[in-house]
């Protein structure tokens, strides 16, 4: 209700104010006088409507929080939804949640924007025409009767489902037919892992990986910190295994073996590039070595395996080998290795396995053949988009339109839904009831934070309706919990109390369902099929991007504009090649290449045309392409961002954002395989600009301009574990003693806010970037503006490629305003628009700024952002996501990180009300709150016991450009890698 109301007024206001601004600017153009006059009416008062009768739970200006569960992917992280005046404006990680432990990834952070997407379906559709639920139900009931009568088979195709209630209902629904089956697949399939365990351990399950227990970690094509299974959970766990405070410092040894440089690979202590075809031989060799048979002789370039095998042997039970490939052979070998090392039950938990991926690619293939065979009478599609996700999507689409009954539950008319006779849109997860058991024993709760903005109905309700006994999702869940969840716990005696606590906490920890695992069966290992190896041509690797995943959030502008942690490119996918390969092909970054290959199952050859991106750390024989792009409807972004005569659209040549690489997928040995050999690459001669936020990628200055020892810039302090164990200050430059020509006149009597960023923990996942964007009303500027280096993100994660000890290291350095005590920006502002607060904050006064940009020029960290244009939401409805505590900046003013001053004020007021000083940790900045690695610490530097003060006292602490005497309040901590050489690679600047 309220939601609708606000929404209308909001939209209205936006329209009017936009018009005014346009007119005003037109006028402004002609005379300075005119400009000066109209300039005076900058601060217009928006009309505000107070509540006549205030809803009990809403206090204007005061946020209310709801515990819930993130539906951005299958990981099932716990979230807290911040509501202001009855509408969600921010999502934060739930610190108490056993899976995510307070962190939340970029995709999770961006979900709140999707809530206000005006292109979501407003109601159910029949044959493409908007309809209403009664009509739709009547028709569907009739059709289902026919199906039952004709004993036709019913198939329910969905992505991984972790909701106990929904699964129970679905079971009942399907069992009401003679032949009803539930087929599960994920666009990014992990089916092979389950398949392998079915063969080796007799149970089709996904182990719950415990990186926190592992001392030696081997990642094989598994980007477990970025995109693999449950990155937020794994990042936290991984970090807890690399805390350096103790003595001796605790730091796991992480080897990453992969074909393309992933976020995880960038963090690793040792990294090796291999091609997919080398994977199985490598695993075999490793297994052999561990078994004591020295086979590595026949694989000279795997000599490093000897050392690795040694490491693994010395860490039996505390090591973990994970493989990200969806190839059963590799997974079986991986299981064999982990079994041999005795990791099962320790670093791989099979008792309370993970339900985060239950895809079954075999079942999927059978379904496709059934559909082709015309056996299927009714197909329900939920949570997946086969026409887009799967190879030969177009053909599947045609088949679907021939089926008698196809029901889709898509939130918008996507590639698949347009072939479905019936579309039953579900409410946005932030406005619906749901439950999730992502990991056995953790049942998370999803509660609505807002009445649905569209005429939607959740899957549970639809199923109950079609089962003949209609009930609300809320009721259905309570019924199910009484049956299957409540009994699995003993803490609460009374169901109501248990329910309320679970709703309050956002989850319930219960006993996992019993799982029987047979003893390990080594037979399968002998008969592993090695995948086809690419000839002299390239091997194609398809991967999900950290911010885009399988592409289901392609309509989210925030995610489109998140720079990829490794390539730093926004708004596109591309063909990643190694430098050597690019040289061989004679292409440069941005040159469009044609990837072509023949598929035995396809009539003609398949082609993909993508811009090139040259990437260090890539295997020469491999070309990598991101999935999740070229989604239907992304043409909406053509006009996002400012419009002027040199402005260019944010979409590619195809009119969409990026290119869909799914046609390159293939079914091999029963699995959906994300790699294929025999790919030919040729130049097209055409070029496409890629919007990369970084133009220079190394920490070393260009060779031509380098001056010996000075070639390396000392911004990322680095030390090997060996060196660090001896000297905690290892890798640090000479300590800079501060001297000033001015008398000390400004001491911070009250609080002095400061921040520390631990480079050793930061993975560069960009969660902080989106969290900051949501908190501080940072607009999306579009591809062309990003390309012009005008992105407005207040946090710029600098990504450097560093040559350390002969390794290609990736260093991520989040750069936000450093809040210098001697701020160069402040001195040069003519109008006092940026000044220093009594608590050490560098404040930007938007309504005083005249926009000379002198401050930005004089900022040695270049973290100031300028409003080059008026940036409006491409979708006016999305203005509802704006944070009322933060000013929306107008054109022509400077802006930058404020250390979330609105949060500081909020807590100070709270503390004042309670008559005590702000407790350490009470204030969490948006970036700090969302960081899955807990790399960011914020607090009062005047309080000696505060966490931040302790970090500052730490020997690893360093400040950027300290010798400029800017005295930043933001500091960084030396990055330590588990290496044995004591050489200190960081030169002293």
């Amino acid at each position: 209700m309220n939601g609708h109301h606000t929404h209308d007024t909001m939209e209205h206001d936006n329209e009017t104010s936009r018009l005014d601004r346009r007119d005003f600017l037109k006028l402004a153009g002609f005379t300075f006088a005119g400009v000066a006059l109209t300039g005076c009416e900058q601060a217009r008062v928006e009309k505000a409507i107070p509540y006549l009768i205030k809803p009990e739970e809403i206090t204007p200006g005061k946020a209310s929080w709801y515990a819930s569960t993130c539906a951005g992917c299958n990981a099932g992280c716990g979230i807290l939804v911040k509501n202001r005046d009855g509408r969600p404006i921010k999502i934060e990680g739930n610190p108490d949640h056993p899976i995510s432990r307070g962190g939340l990834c970029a995709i999770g952070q961006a979900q709140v924007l999707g809530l206000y997407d005006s292109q979501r379906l407003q109601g159910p559709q029949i044959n493409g025409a908007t309809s209403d639920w009664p009509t739709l139900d009547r028709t569907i009931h009739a059709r289902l009767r026919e199906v039952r009568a004709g004993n036709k088979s019913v198939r329910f195709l969905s992505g991984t489902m972790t909701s106990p209630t929904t699964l129970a209902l679905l079971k009942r629904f399907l069992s009401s037919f003679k032949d009803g089956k539930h087929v599960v697949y994920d666009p990014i399939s992990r089916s092979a892992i389950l398949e392998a365990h079915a063969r080796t351990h007799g149970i089709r399950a996904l182990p719950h990986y415990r990186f926190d227990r592992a001392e030696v970690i081997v990642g094989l094509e598994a980007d477990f910190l970025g995109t693999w299974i449950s990155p937020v959970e794994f990042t936290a766990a991984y970090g807890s295994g690399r805390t350096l405070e103790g003595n001796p410092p605790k730091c796991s040894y992480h080897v990453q073996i992969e074909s393309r440089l992933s976020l995880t690979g960038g963090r690793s202590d040792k990294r090796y590039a291999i091609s997919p075809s080398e994977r199985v031989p490598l695993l075999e060799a490793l297994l052999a070595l561990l078994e004591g048979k020295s086979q590595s002789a026949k694989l000279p370039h795997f000599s490093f395996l000897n050392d690795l095998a040694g490491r693994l042997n010395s860490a039996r039970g505390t090591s973990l080998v994970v493989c990200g490939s969806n190839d059963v052979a590799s997974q079986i070998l991986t299981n064999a290795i982990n079994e041999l090392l005795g990791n099962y039950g320790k670093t791989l938990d099979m008792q309370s396995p993970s339900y985060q991926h239950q895809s079954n690619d075999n079942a999927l293939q059978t379904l496709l053949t059934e559909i082709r065979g015309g056996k299927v009478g009714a197909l329900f599609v939920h949570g997946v988009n086969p026409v887009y996700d799967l190879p030969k999507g177009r053909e599947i689409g045609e088949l679907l339109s021939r089926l008698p009954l196809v029901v889709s539950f898509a939130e918008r008319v996507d590639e698949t839904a347009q072939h479905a006779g019936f579309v039953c849109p579900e409410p946005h997860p932030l406005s619906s009831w749901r439950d999730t058991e992502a990991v056995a024993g953790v049942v998370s709760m999803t509660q609505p934070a807002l009445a649905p903005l569209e005429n939607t109905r959740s899957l549970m309700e639809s199923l109950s309706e079609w089962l003949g006994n209609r009930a609300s999702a809320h009721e259905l869940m309570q019924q199910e919990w009484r049956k299957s969840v409540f009994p699995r716990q003993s803490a609460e005696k009374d169901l109501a109390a248990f329910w309320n606590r679970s709703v309050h906490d956002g989850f319930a920890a219960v006993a996992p369902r019993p799982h029987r695992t047979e003893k390990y069966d080594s037979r399968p290992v002998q008969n592993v099929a090695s995948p086809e190896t690419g000839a002299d041509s390239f091997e194609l690797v398809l991967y999900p991007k950290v911010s885009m995943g399988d592409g289901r959030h392609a309509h989210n502008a925030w995610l489109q504009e998140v720079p990829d942690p490794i390539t730093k490119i926004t708004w596109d996918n591309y063909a990643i090649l190694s430098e050597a390969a690019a040289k061989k092909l004679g292409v440069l970054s941005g040159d469009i290449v044609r990837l072509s290959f023949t598929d035995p199952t396809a009539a003609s050859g398949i082609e993909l045309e993508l811009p090139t991106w040259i990437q260090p750390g890539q295997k020469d024989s491999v070309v990598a392409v991101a999935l999740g792009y070229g989604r239907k409807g992304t043409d909406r972004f053509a006009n996002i961002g400012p419009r002027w005569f040199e402005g260019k659209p944010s979409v590619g040549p195809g009119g969409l954002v990026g290119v869909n690489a799914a046609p390159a997928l293939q079914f091999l040995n029963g699995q959906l395989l994300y790699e294929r050999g025999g790919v030919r690459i040729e130049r097209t001669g055409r070029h496409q600009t890629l919007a990369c936020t970084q133009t220079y990628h190394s920490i070393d200055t260009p060779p031509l301009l380098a001056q010996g020892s000075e070639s390396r810039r000392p911004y990322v302090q680095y030390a090997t574990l060996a060196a660090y164990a001896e000297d905690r200050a290892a890798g640090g430059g000479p300590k800079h003693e501060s001297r000033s020509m001015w008398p000390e006149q400004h001491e911070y009597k009250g609080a002095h806010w400061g921040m520390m960023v631990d480079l050793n923990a930061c993975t560069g996942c960009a969660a902080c970037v989106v969290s900051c964007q949501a908190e501080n009303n940072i607009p999306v500027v579009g591809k062309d503006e990003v390309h012009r280096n005008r992105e407005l993100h207040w946090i710029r994660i600098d990504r450097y490629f560093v040559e350390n000890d002969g390794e290609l290291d990736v260093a991520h350095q989040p750069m936000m305003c450093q809040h210098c005590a001697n701020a160069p920006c402040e001195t040069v502002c003519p109008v006092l628009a940026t000044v220093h607060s009594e608590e050490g904050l560098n404040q930007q006064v938007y309504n005083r700024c005249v926009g000379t940009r002198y401050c930005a020029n004089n900022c040695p960290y270049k973290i100031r952002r300028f409003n080059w244009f008026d940036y409006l939401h491409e979708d006016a409805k999305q203005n509802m996501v704006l944070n009322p505590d933060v000013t929306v900046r107008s054109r022509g003013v400077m802006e930058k990180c404020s250390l979330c001053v609105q949060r500081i004020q909020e807590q100070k007021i709270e503390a004042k009300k309670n008559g005590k000083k702000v407790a350490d940790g009470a204030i969490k900045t948006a970036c700090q709150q969302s960081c899955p690695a807990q790399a960011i610490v914020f607090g009062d530097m005047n309080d000696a016991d505060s966490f931040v003060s302790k970090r500052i006292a730490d020997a690893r602490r360093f400040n950027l450009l300290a010798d400029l005497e800017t005295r930043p309040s933001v500091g960084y901590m030396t990055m330590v890698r588990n290496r044995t050489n004591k050489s200190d690679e960081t030169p002293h600047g």
Partner: protein
Amino acid sequence: MSRRLFVAYFEQEEDILGVTRAAKEAGYEIRDVYTPYAVHGLDKAMGLRKSRLPWICLGFALLGATAKLWFQIWTSAFDWPVNVGGKPLASVPAFVPVTFEITVLFAGLGTVAAFLLVSRLRPGKKPLMNFNRATDDRHVLVLVENDAAFDPLEAAALCGRYHSVKMEEMLEEES
């Protein structure tokens, strides 16, 4: 009452110089000498005393300097003190440039204003005596026929000796 003036025109710079000196020696009251450009030494010949404008210039300069320096310190350190880049509230070295500029501005404008004032020049003013060619190529000597002792012929003779190209008498209304 009005008084009679004796006006003589000359072509050459050295003539006007000479005749002015001579007239002075002869004790004539020189009303003024009008020349198309600044003839050097003419003021001495007429026996004018040095201008006092430099003192006015100095005065304005000092005024500008003190006023501006005070204003900067007052606004930055007293009226609304703000911490700007950790610098002292009264960062006097940083206030020097503006102080200097204002000093020059005051001195310049002040001097010119004073000049126009004492020389009775202002926009739209009609010239008191307008000898057209005095702004072109003629040097004009104007003597006051102050008493009966003044002998036009004598004056004429004097001017003639200096190749006066034209002589005339005229009345001046005295206010």
